[in-house]
């Protein structure tokens, strides 16, 4: 099947999960992710697989926890306010080492916020949703075609490392339709030695996160941290464009990277040597690659649909090696390519000016 078809981002993610062999989907309506729920409501039953619209996001993710404990391949989706409710079980699933893929189609926050696209859940996604020392790999596609590729990758990472994995997209990528060649990828089914099936001819198994003895819990944390180090070593993903001769790199992911790509082309045609560094895995963050790039640059401009979240990881990565500027819009507002070009110019030629102040010049509300 190589014909190009027009697909909506949310539906493409849902169908990619179906094709990957997702056994069960649990969800709850929230804008702007409802199309994933609706797609699965139709597709999963017709394939004889499990679909439940739960009583809440708490219900949905705990159903996922139970299903994952038996070795099922599970997908859950929501948006910011729902992800906040799921934070509890994410901590439990990370601690219990259960695989699952969770899609966050980000909307504006905080609070009930807005239903427009945003990237304001970066902290939540990468710094831990719930309590305790844990991480969850986070993959951020910047196109619908890439989302289709990353869904099976997310399941592979989840099952290889026994961990929840988050796909971080936003209302723009979720709602937009793009022509894609729907190369959906089916996955092999690994054999697990830890799943619950009933203690028939073997000792009982327990999926747990409780370790009341401090020594036991520290030992368990060491196991988790070793796993996170392995993920940091093997699962870093990023893409670069026109970085070879760049004197300034825009660092952006997801929808912000789409805007940055257009801005880069405009700036290039005006003679500015601009490149794009696009993190695809937000955790683990591509710090090493960015640090290696920094000495060749005069400046970095981080562009986000937030008040500045990923910019903190960029600054940590480059360790002061290059000035890091930031430009962002919030609340569902999306930076225009023109705004980003102006921010590039400011970063290069007037570095004393905080590019964020350009928001006011652009008529933004900040």
């Amino acid at each position, binding site marked *: 099947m190589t014909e190009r078809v027009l697909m909506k981002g949310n539906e493409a993610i849902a169908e990619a999960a179906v094709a990957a062999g997702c*056994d069960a989907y649990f969800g709850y309506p929230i804008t702007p992710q409802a199309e994933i729920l609706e797609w699965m409501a139709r597709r999963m039953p017709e394939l004889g697989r499990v679909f439940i619209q739960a009583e809440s996001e708490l219900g949905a993710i705990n159903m996922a926890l139970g299903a994952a404990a038996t070795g099922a391949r599970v997908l859950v989706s929501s948006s910011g306010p729902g992800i906040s409710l799921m934070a509890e079980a994410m901590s439990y699933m990370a601690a219990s080492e259960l695989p699952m893929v969770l899609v966050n189609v980000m909307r504006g926050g905080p609070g009930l916020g807005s239903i427009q696209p945003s990237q304001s859940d970066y902290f939540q996604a990468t710094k831990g949703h719930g309590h305790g020392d844990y991480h969850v790999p986070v993959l951020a596609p910047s196109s619908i075609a890439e989302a289709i590729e990353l869904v099976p990758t997310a399941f592979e990472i989840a099952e290889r490392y026994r961990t929840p994995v988050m796909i971080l997209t936003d209302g723009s990528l979720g709602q937009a339709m793009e022509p894609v060649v729907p190369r959906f990828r089916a996955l092999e089914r690994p054999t697990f030695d830890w799943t619950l099936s009933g203690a028939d001819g073997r000792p009982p198994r327990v999926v747990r996160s*409780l370790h009341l003895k401090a020594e036991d819990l520290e030992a368990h944390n060491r196991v988790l941290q070793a796993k996170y180090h392995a993920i940091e070593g093997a699962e870093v993903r990023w893409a670069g464009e026109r970085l070879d001769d760049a004197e300034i790199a825009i660092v952006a992911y997801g929808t912000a990277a789409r805007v940055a790509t257009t801005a880069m082309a405009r700036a290039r045609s005006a003679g500015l040597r601009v490149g794009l560094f696009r993190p695809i895995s937000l955790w683990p963050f591509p710090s090493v690659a960015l640090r290696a790039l920094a000495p060749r640059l005069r400046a970095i401009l981080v562009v986000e649909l937030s008040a500045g979240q990923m910019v903190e990881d960029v600054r940590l990565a480059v360790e002061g090696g290059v000035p890091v500027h930031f430009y962002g819009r919030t609340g569902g507002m999306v930076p225009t390519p023109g705004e980003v070009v102006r921010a590039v110019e400011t970063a290069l030629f007037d570095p004393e000016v905080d590019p964020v102040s350009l928001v006011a010049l652009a008529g933004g509300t900040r």
Partner: protein
Amino acid sequence: MTTETPTRTTRLESDESPRIVYQRPELLTDRSTHYCPGCGHGVVHRLIAEVLGEMGLGPRTIAVAPVGCAVFAYDYLGLDFCEAPHGRAPAVATGIRRVRPEAFVLSYQGDGDMAAIGTAEIVHAAARGELITAVFVNNGIYGMTGGQMAPTTLLGQKTTSSPGGREAVLHGYPLPITEMLALIPGVAYAARGSVLDPGTIGKTKAFLRRACEVQLEGTGFGIVEVISNCPVGWGMTPRQSMDWLRDNVAAVYPPGVIVDRGRPALSLPVASRPEAAADDA
């Protein structure tokens, strides 16, 4: 009154070899529990081990452990177990049930877990008619955290967070969650037992067996509430706590079958039927 569980081995008068009439159920691990002296959880664990063993369900059971004292149920019952976050056991059990249709799914919750933080999950699991057998141990208190007021705490009952006694105007009324669930058509069976004495324990065992049968029949959600005691949390001796259970708790939460919408069980893999105990108790 006879019970199903005579307390000593008896030798038959004929010349047959000795017959064991009481022993540790196979599904109960050979391990001392961490429960306080006089606590009812151990009795409920034993009933589960007996019923699942007699019905031959152990090897296909996936159980869900609560948060609270009984989180360690997996140390005492030889079953596959999944921990659930506080209150979420019915959702976790739902996930297991739907992807493992061949499994027997049992969830175990206390009163704080089911009737406070987990009301949404239990109500909607029941509304979906999930084929789950829910065991609900109601001792009217948060035991593990030191004896705070629970949704099922009786009016007037003193706890560490209702030091003057529970008052309706301040703390609301005790929640009859099993009766509430029994209103839902998805609930095939709802009953309330007790750990008061051998007679009521035998009856509770019969309730538990029926709650398991409705799952096997596929008729819907089954729940058995067991009113139980918490001597330490209640600030009583075990003996006093049993008097309180009989005189006060059972008056608010009366034992008995609340609803049975299931089909009569005809050809189930049940090793021994519960009628005798149920009739006697």
